[in-house]
């Protein structure tokens, strides 16, 4: 019963935040609404008994990625007015079409498989949470069945990090920090 009330509140909050995110004018407000929606999703994961996913959702999405977004928004300045000219032609039309397709897909799944979050599945999850524990169960699945995907993702992330380091690298080394030549201040792309 309590779970149902919490679920209702989370549902309303997540949806409200997502809608407000779309209509907010200020970039910082948009980011904040996104954080609110992510935290609400974390609570929804908790309700499902997925403790690990809930914690990771907050640490990674709300805690790391969105803070970085805010940081960038703050550094670049949010007082700038929005650019109304769209760089991609027919972007809105394509987005609308793809969005409708996605909504249709979700509706189809929701209509055809009613038992998606049925009682037997939540009970199975509860049993797993009791016996090996949530973290262990996630670890076993991740490092056995989905190992290849997991490793591929980490390679992808490392590639991205190396790419960023190469792009943002300053040519001058630490030792020449005290040198007062103006060229050492220049940023070069390797």
């Amino acid at each position, binding site marked *: *019963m*309590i779970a149902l009330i919490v679920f209702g509140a989370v549902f309303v909050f997540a949806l409200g935040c997502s809608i407000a995110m779309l209509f907010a004018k*200020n970039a*910082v*407000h948009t980011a*904040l609404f996104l*954080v609110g929606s992510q*935290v609400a999703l*974390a609570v929804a994961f908790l309700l499902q008994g997925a*403790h*690990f996913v*809930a*914690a*990771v959702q*907050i*640490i990674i999405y*709300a*805690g*790391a990625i969105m*803070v*970085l977004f*805010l*940081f960038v928004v*703050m*550094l670049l300045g949010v007082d700038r007015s929005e650019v109304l000219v769209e760089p991609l032609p027919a972007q809105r039309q394509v987005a609308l079409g793809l969005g409708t397709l996605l909504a249709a897909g979700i509706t189809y799944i929701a209509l055809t498989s009613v038992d998606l979050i049925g009682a037997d599945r939540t009970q199975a999850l509860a049993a797993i*949470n009791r016996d090996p*524990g*949530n*973290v262990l169960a996630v670890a076993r699945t991740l490092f056995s069945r989905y190992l290849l995907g997991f490793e591929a993702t980490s390679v992808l992330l490392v590639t991205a990090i190396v790419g960023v380091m190469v792009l943002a690298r300053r040519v001058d080394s*630490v*030792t020449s*920090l*005290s*040198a*007062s030549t103006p060229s050492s201040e220049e940023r070069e792309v390797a």
Partner: protein
Amino acid sequence: MSAILDFIGVEFIVALVKAIVVFAALLLTTILVVWFERKVIADMQSRVGPSRWGPWGLMQTLADGIKLFFKEDFRPQGADKWAYALAPVLAMVPAILGFAVVPVGGVLGFGDTRVGLVGSDLNVGILYFLAMGSINVYGIVLAGWASGSKYPLLGGIRSTAQLISYETSLGLSLVPIALVAGSLSTVQIVQAQAGTVGNVTFFDGIPVLEQVSSLFRFIPNWFIWSQWPAFAIFFISGIAETNRAPFDLPEAESELVAGYHTEYSGIRFALFFLGEYVHVVVISAMAVTLFFGGWDGPIFPFLSWLWPLIWFTLKTIAFVYLFVWLRATMPRLRYDRLMWLGWKRLIPGALLWIMVTAVVNTAGIDRGVRLAVFGALFLLVLGFVIRGDPRQKTAVSPQRRVSSGAA
């Protein structure tokens, strides 16, 4: 009555009572910690400290709190209304929520109901603690931005960089603990530290040192012995997370007025203040839980349920004292030194230590060998961490200055 009880469930009522007790206790603790800090600092600076109201000036914080409540709540013209109001709340609430996974005692029995003296025994307790810490960043970031003023913005940007950097090493320093304890639950981590180190065969056969071995039977089996480097990294990052000296750059008075909370007054400022002190208590309590056996300690027959609480409180107070001590003795770090320490010493050190723990902790390795390897590698990591900044030696060397002058 029983119908209502069935409807909402006993578990819910227990959880509610726990939440209220933890909240009230933390607020009371904050009042005491503020007083404690002022008294200790005063003592270290040969002053008297608060002494007017109550015994030893104990009620001074309460007076300050009442003053803050009745002060005018001022908002600058250029401030962002909603974010400005949200920031102090986000600075305080996650700090309090973080305490929910700290076990302060064993299990109490009320008739048939067994109540664990912990807010919630989550099986992802450590991750929850980290998650709350990461939400805490928003309070400071938003305060800096929403004030619509220069110095708070600078303080906010500084703090974002600082907190993101030190959150990484804080998280990494907890991985070895999870490896050693085999669990992310704080309750199970405390249970894993129960008992004593026990028989150590390491010095057997050596005449004098053989007596030393018997001493190990009295030493509690806390993680601090094998996880000393992880503790050092955890505590340094913890201080940085709480924005306290020597890592109080976001609110450096001499440079940024009061940093991110420059424009805050009255009750909103009080919330920031409260958040910082609750955070200090939570980091101290977490250090005790993860490295110093939590509520573990000798339990005497009379009032046996009270002893764990007493040991936990005493250990936590010791760490709060350490926080205050550091504030009284350490000068503030320069910004580049702060970043250097975080990224070039703590994070590589933490990664190295995770690797060492993972290798040494593998099943099948003898316990004596394990202890020896831990000890040797501990010294290695320590040397690596405290070796110092090579840049400091080269950047301001007189030789370089001469050569650049000649050019």
